């Protein structure tokens, strides 16, 4: 059997946070979700993106950990910090290009998604991908994904000088998608006049008609 993969398809995400709620059910998490959901720009869109750990081939979080607290298993799952080693320095939190690890002050420890290691190591799906109503989070083989779904799974990302290959795939729409990320240019663009006008589906409407809703 070919290797099980994890796919994130943000277009399908409906922002329901079912993944986070299910993640928090793991007995070791005690009600805390280890994954999170980002609103891109709630003012302009209902687009949301669920973020699990991307489980990098060469995890930056582990590379910057001064205490060697972050381990990668033989089956390429990057684990949460080891309690006895983690010194709570938050280097990993700042270094991860995907913004995944979280520091929990009450435990003085970094915790993050470990792809439900208790389940996936037993042949089960991760909790978030099991419950996700729209399959924005999907766990299966690459062949299974390609046989039943549209979109292009991508697992190589450029962050400036750094190229990162991940075990988790991000699903881009079909066709060519430029994944080079010029963050500063994007941020500046947000403040230009009319930056989001093209996103307004109601641009042809008056703000407050006074005569029974007629145009």
């Amino acid at each position: 059997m070919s290797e099980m993969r994890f796919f994130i398809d943000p277009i399908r995400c409906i922002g329901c946070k079912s993944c986070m709620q299910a993640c928090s059910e793991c007995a070791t998490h005690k009600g805390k979700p280890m994954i999170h959901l980002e609103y891109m720009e709630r003012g302009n869109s209902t687009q949301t993106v669920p973020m699990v750990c991307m489980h990098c081939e060469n995890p930056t979080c582990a590379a910057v950990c001064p205490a060697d607290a972050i381990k990668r298993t033989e089956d390429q799952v990057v684990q949460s910090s080891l309690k006895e080693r983690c010194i709570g320095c938050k280097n990993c939190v700042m270094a991860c290009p995907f913004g995944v690890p979280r520091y929990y002050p009450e435990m003085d420890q970094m915790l993050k998604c470990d792809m439900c290691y208790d389940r996936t190591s037993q042949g089960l799906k991760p909790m978030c991908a099991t419950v996700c109503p729209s399959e924005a989070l999907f766990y299966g083989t690459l062949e299974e994904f390609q046989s039943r779904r549209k979109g292009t799974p991508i697992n190589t990302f450029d962050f400036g000088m750094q190229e990162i290959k991940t075990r988790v795939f991000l699903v881009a729409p079909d066709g060519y998608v430029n994944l080079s990320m010029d963050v500063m240019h994007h941020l500046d663009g947000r403040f230009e006049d009319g930056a989001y006008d093209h996103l307004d589906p109601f641009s042809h409407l008056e703000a407050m008609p006074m005569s029974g809703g007629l145009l």
Partner: protein
Amino acid sequence: MAKVPLTREEMVDLYGPTLHYTPAGGFKTIEEYDRLVATHCCFCGQQCGINLKVKDNAVVGFEPRTDFPFNKGKLCPKGVKRYLQGSHPDRLMYPMKRTEKGYERISWDQALEETVSKIKEIQAKYGRDSFAMLSGVSLTTEKSYLVGKFARLALQTANLDYNGRLCMVSAGAGNKKAYGIDRASNHWEDITKAKVIFVIGTNIAECFPITTDYVWRARDNGAKLIYADPRMVPMARTADLYLPLRPGTDSALLISMLHVIIRDGLTDEKFIAEHTSGFEETREAVKDATPEWAAKITGIPAHQIEKAARWYGEAETGMILHARGLEHQTKGVENVVSCANLALATGKIGREGCGHSTITGQGNGQGGREHGHKCDQLPGNRDITNPEHRQYIADIWGVEESEIPGKGLSAQEILNEIHAGNIKGLLSICFNPLVSLPDANFNREALEKLEHYTVIDFFLSETAQHADIVLPGSLQEEDEGTTTSGEGRVIKINQAITPPGEAKKDWEILLDIAHRLGRGKYFPYQNTKEIFEELRLASRGGTADYSGITWERVEKENGVFWPAPQTTEKGKTAKRSEDLDTHHPGTPRLFEGGKFYHPDGRGHFNAVKWRESGEVVDTEYPIWLTTGRVVSQYLSGTQTRRIGPLVDQYPNPRMEIHPRLALKLNIQDNDWVTVKTRRGQITVRAMVVNTIRPDTVFVPYHWGGKQSINMLTQRALDPVSKIPEFKVSACVVSKATPEEIREGEEAQRLSGKTEKLPVNYGINDRRREFSR
């Protein structure tokens, strides 16, 4: 008379809502459990399969149930956290009586005796119909059937109705007019085979989340998605064509689409000729409904209306899905039959990948409404005014036909009559009209006028706080029975635990009251399965025919689609349920071969002319107000506003407003704003988003007290379905004054209290995560 005895603050302190976070026994027990019980979610009409983890007679967690074909393990956040309503600190554990100082614990004997003596007293003084009953469709089908029989034979009142009246009765009435039967036309697998999916007036991502997967599967197969809604809701964001219609204009859009379909020759003439009637009148009615005409009413550009009509008309297969956005109106039935007209005119019904379905908002909205706790229906979807139907049910119940009361008042009409002083007593079960009915201030006044009110529930809801006697009932996991999901699948709810404390199963409470009213002989049941066996007989021959369905079949086949009628002569005439046959395979897809359920076997067109909503905007109230749901809350919030993680996800109601309207009104994101209609006002925070029409604001409805948007909605009813006009009101929005902000903050403070949590639980940290 029935005024809440304590201040709001004192009531919250005593009875919640308490935000409950920890499973019974603490988080350790999530891994340790005695057994898994395969059952279903207690919330919306999808009725997802779920396994509950049980330890020491308490539900301690969940495990995905991947073997159930509808959801295959998928769940929305409500399903994931549903288990937290068990072992909840607010749970009602013993009967209570209202005193001037609050509620005091009393014995079951006293509680039942006081209820029964009040029923007798009020009915002797004012007549039998002066005592009304209100029921809920969170109940299993067995309980719904029992409530119908109980009200008619034990209370002997005509005035029984149910909270499905606030849900999809417009769809039910419209479906009956068009197709002669009240059910989704097909199982959800048909969605995946459609080439075009037209969704109107339903936020499926937040109200029916698992259904989004069916839509995506269709789109993976090349289907186009057309989405009509005043808000760009999550699925609309991705649609191939988005139609941003103004609230209350659904039928104008639908009529115009039919106009284009007829004009461009996209009708299925053979299907129309062979399987339908009334097309000529409908053709005549839409002849002037050009896209340009509809554009002015709906606010959708004419070319988009043309495109939608052509996509739907030209596609080989197609599906129409709608829900409350279109049905919660004084024109709800007209909107639904307008959808049916599209399906019938193009022959897109009764075959693979085709259909027209309503999305049922409430758990057992489908099964509950079929078997007799609706004011105008008897079991099997029978008409209470039809002498033959009455006689059939009278024979099953062993009474004279004349002993069954006639058609009663609908839910809002019952409240109206209570307010007018004509109905004096009320018994309700799992219904929270103070939050879920429109014009909440009026309804509060009504409840305060009652001479007696007994409530059966498991939490003390906003409405239950007006009760004289409180009888603690059961949660879904504390009893067994069946429900029917939105796609028409009868499924089995299994008992996981027994009711805690002195709480009892709902049906046992009703039986106790019936016995004390001296009507016990009509209620000889030992368990709910016996109720289902009687229901099978009672539904036989009705349109909602469950006679071929057994609990065993439901378990074995993972659900059976009704109707499943009798196939043998023996079954058709049997007097006992043991003699009914179970050969019919069930009916996942209705209307195959163009066979409809009207006596003439045809689908009926219903000509609809456009008319305005009950209230329209003017210079005084210039903005359209519409309401709806958020994914983490369910209906009136009685259950979900008590589950901490769900509350954290969307803690308080907010008003969505477009940036251009916000600019006009000088409102910034997160400002306190006051929304006002002719019925009342509410102060909430604004959420400035360009995903809503600039002439419309939206507020979700799950909250009570001064956070209840239903203080602002109107009691105007659809003339056929009697559903209130929740989705369209005229309002005015302004920046809140300091006094109004104080009220808003006070309302937030009183919306719930947090349970005491372990020190290291990290609650604040988690709350930030969920409410970002």
